[in-house]
């Protein structure tokens, strides 16, 4: 059933990470502690999932220094945003039953058939 869903994103943890990063305007990044706070996650666990997303090219992890304090910032890449959009579209397709044959009058099917797919 979930054959079309990108396995890199198709985990609750990584889906929440990608949702968080793509909720920001393109080009924006979050510091690691702030991302951790928005996800209510442990640092080690978050690092593990970020590494998988980074290996896939979906997020970039930028390490720098602010004065002498090390700072880690995380942002979704262009590929990551596209993969996330594709994932959402695939998810939506799974949730939308295929067009009903001829004279079917299921109000549920009607509603989902007319629901807007993507906002842009």
């Amino acid at each position, binding site marked *: 059933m979930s054959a079309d869903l990108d396995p890199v994103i198709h985990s609750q943890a990584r889906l929440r990470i990608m949702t968080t990063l793509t909720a*920001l305007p393109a080009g924006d990044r*979050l510091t690691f502690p702030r991302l951790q706070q*928005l996800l*209510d996650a442990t640092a080690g666990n978050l690092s593990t999932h970020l590494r998988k997303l980074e290996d896939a090219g979906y997020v970039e992890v930028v390490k720098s220094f602010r004065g002498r304090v090390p700072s880690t910032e995380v942002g979704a890449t262009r590929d990551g945003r596209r993969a996330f959009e594709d994932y959402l579209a695939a998810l939506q397709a799974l949730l939308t039953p295929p067009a009903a044959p001829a004279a079917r009058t299921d109000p549920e099917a009607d509603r989902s058939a007319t629901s807007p797919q993507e906002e842009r």
Partner: protein
Amino acid sequence: MQAHPENVDPADGPADLADGPADPAAMAALVAAQRAHVVRSTNPDARLLYGVWGAAWLVGFGLLWLADRSGSGLTVGAAYAGFGALMLVGVVVTAVHLTRRSSGLSGSSKAQRQMLGWTWGLSFSAVAALNTSLGMSGASDQVMAVVTSVVPALVVGALYMAGGAVWGDSMQFGLGAWICVAAAAGALSGPAHVHLVMAVAGGGGLLIGALVYHLRVTRSPSRARRPGAPS
């Protein structure tokens, strides 16, 4: 609180993220919930800001109006002290709130917010300079009453309108237009009534704005304005 991944023991901290896939409906719900949480946590809360400033204007200008009326027992000095303290509370609440909501953000959003901060800070510094200059050059109490009430309101109204236009936020634009109209009405009503007009129309308008935003939020909890939002 500001932990770094390199030197943090994986065992400390809140909890491991729930892992593994869930069914599609649950995953879609997860996206909607997390997106709403992020938007709510990183964007300023208009209700808080309009509410604080609406209350500060209503009470602050109300005090000045009371002091204008003989027999109220409130001295002009005490009224201005109260007014100043309320404005200071507004500035502190706003600064703390915006700093918290922007914490950990970098990139275009951060630059945008910093420029907005400078816009408000510099324009109000110029307003303060104008008031000081008029006071020192012997402007009458009548002139001071009008200028010190109307000019700041004009700046607020203009910045709200411009902000509303840039963000595509018609509510903010409308509120700015209302504040501009209130400022004009205050100016035309003259020194005897300007404080009352600014308290009721200005402060009252901001409080109504806060209420309208509140109703909007409670009626559609996940008003995310981000592209690609699942329907």
